[in-house]
């Protein structure tokens, strides 16, 4: 399957769910989608087109919490980054753990560092942060503020 066929498949099948598509280079395509269509788009890429799920990355852009799911189609050397923008107040998106197990750890990491809730995640346990970390504080949010009264934020010199 060629690059054009992949993009046609994607835009044809999910014409109303795709909010924007940036064809930035021969190797890279960014697709902005409606979060409701995430499982559908991922199923198409992963199951039908044979893409490999590399990882997901999350970022807080002040206006929204964005998650980018990076898929690579190795035979044609094309990286497709599927982007969902979520409400900052209550970020919620469908979990992809039902589709591939590799989503498990990265979703747990995004959950604790950015506070995104994944609907349908089986084991939403803590992954990276220490035990004493409060549940409602997300360190990679833009509005993160120091919560630990014992923290020292100087270098010991005035």
């Amino acid at each position, binding site marked *: 399957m060629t690059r054009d066929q992949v993009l046609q498949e994607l835009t044809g099948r999910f014409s109303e769910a795709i909010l924007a598509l940036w064809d930035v280079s021969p190797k890279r395509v960014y697709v902005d989608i409606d979060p409701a269509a995430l499982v559908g788009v991922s199923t198409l890429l992963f199951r039908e087109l044979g893409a490999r799920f590399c990882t997901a990355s999350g970022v807080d852009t002040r206006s929204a919490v964005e998650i980018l799911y990076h898929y690579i189609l190795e035979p044609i050397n094309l990286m497709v980054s599927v982007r969902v923008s979520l409400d900052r107040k209550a970020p919620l998106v469908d979990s992809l753990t039902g589709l591939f197990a590799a989503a498990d750890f990265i979703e747990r990491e995004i959950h604790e560092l950015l506070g995104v809730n994944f609907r349908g995640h089986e084991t939403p346990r803590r992954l990276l942060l220490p035990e004493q*970390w409060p549940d409602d504080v997300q360190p990679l949010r833009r509005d993160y503020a120091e919560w630990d009264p014992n923290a*020292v*934020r100087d*270098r010991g010199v005035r």
Partner: protein
Amino acid sequence: MSFRLNALLRSPWLFHLSTGSCNNCDIEVLDCLTPRFDVERFGMVLTGSIKHADVLLVTGSCNRQSAERLRRLYEQAPKPCVVVAIGECSLSRGMFVESYNCPVPIDHVVPVDVYIPGCPPKPEAVIAGVVKLMAKVREATKKGRGKAPEEVATA
């Protein structure tokens, strides 16, 4: 100087702990220990357990998990035990001073006797730091004759 302390200063055994460093300081410490700089000629040997060590070498910026481990290790160390902080991260946390996971520098967790700055410190700097430490302990021992070794080592 007591016989025991004199003997200890002639062969201080080291225990090396990385509290979350980038490993560059650790590589410099290994450089010191291996034949090129060869601090073994001063009787310094790396030990596998803190219970055999006289000196605790600490590298890294000490995150929330390793702070607890560092404190426990220091409690297990036979006293007198001197603590050497190696590298900018273990001195002041370097670029991680505002990091959410590095709340305090290591001298808020355990008492530190020698600070060796650098990112990473050269092996020469590490050796100079250790020599200064030995001189400091000798000097403190002269002044603190009759005191317990624990008080002398942290004087």
